[in-house]
């Protein structure tokens, strides 16, 4: 696979990777802090669980949003300059996957706002 194609695949799957990292951090940190009884530890005026989820969610949202913007730009460029079937597939998949990842990352962060830590 060429370097361009590798970058294209990474861009297409980037949103999913951001979501997977957010998912792992949220579940791992919440389980550890709640299991060890450290959930009430306050950082910057917030509970350790909430602040971890907030930071992980905002970072993942920012990453997915950037990837979505880049994917949309590529997809728009492709309209002006006809591309191969593979390029078209990867570009359109990138828009779809990064857009959906944005939504799912947001969904994973919502419980931290509504539910108490370790609920």
């Amino acid at each position, binding site marked *: 696979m060429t370097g361009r194609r590798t970058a294209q695949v990474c861009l297409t799957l980037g949103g999913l990777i951001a979501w997977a990292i957010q998912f792992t951090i949220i579940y791992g940190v919440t389980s550890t802090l709640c299991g060890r009884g450290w959930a009430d530890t306050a950082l910057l005026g917030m509970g350790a669980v909430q602040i971890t989820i907030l930071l992980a969610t905002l970072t993942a949202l920012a990453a997915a949003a950037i990837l979505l913007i880049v994917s949309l730009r590529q997809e728009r460029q492709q309209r002006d300059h006809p591309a191969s079937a593979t390029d078209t597939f990867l570009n359109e998949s990138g828009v*779809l996957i990064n857009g*959906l990842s944005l*939504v799912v990352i947001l*969904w994973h962060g*919502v*419980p931290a706002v*509504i*539910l*108490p830590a370790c*609920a």
Partner: protein
Amino acid sequence: MFLWTVPVAGCGGVQSALDPAGGDAWDLYRLTIVMTVGATLIFVFVTALLLYAVFAPPERRAWLGTRRTIVYGGLAFPIVVLSLLLPYGLVVMRDTDVPQPGALQIEVTGEQYWWRVRYPAEGDQAEFSTANELIVPIGRPITVSVTAADVIHSFWIPNLGGKIDMIPGRINRFNFTAERPGLYRGICAEFCGAQHARMAFDVMVLEPTEFEVWRQSQAQPAQEPAIPHLARGRDLFRAGGCGSCHMVRGTEANGQFGPDLTHVGSRRTIGAGQFPNNVGTLAGWIANVQQIKPGAKMPSYGSLTGEDLRAMAGYLESLK
């Protein structure tokens, strides 16, 4: 008519999440109805579209394959629906099962295949233990602290709230307020072994004054047998070593392994909600427990004579 009776047969009664008897249970009931009605409408709509896509003439169904239809119907619509349902479900989860100040504390331990129930001391009221029954006052918040002695069980009173896991070495808490007096049935909602399906308990919601009377009577030690027949039962209970597993407060029977039998005669059922409590079922239980509930920790005492069995069952039944 017959077909309609099948789905609605479980909508009422002593063990039904569709017949809520408390505020938390009502919130869960409304959530269930919203989810079920919504899912049904969407299912019917999508099925209709599917049939339309299969049977409609090609020129009329062409719009189903357009980009706009896929983006709005296949992406935007599910995202909007799920984005509304997620916070709704989370808010219900947050607002139910909230600990209330002044709640009556009850501790329940799940064991294969029965429920150890302890009412801790409160004010002048002494602590006591019972089994396979939960008696609560109407209108007062209740906090049930649950754990398990052997394997994972799950504590569920469908009419009064959601289920909560009972995990060995961990204490989970379940909060509810009963708002309608009556009899309800709780069950184990996590497969816990061969007799999982026979692990139930009674829940009685009483008026506060009735509850206080019950609580005071439960804190009392067992009464002495009133007649020789019952005294013979007590002696057999003692001689048979039953007291090494069971406690009867006020006697030398101080076992902790099995259910506390101090007031077993006052319970509505025996065998963790399996049989009505009377001399006959008690005698049958003592003689045949391994046939009735194979795998229970208590052995069958089938070698007792009929007379001895009646005396022992009579003694237990007299422990009101």
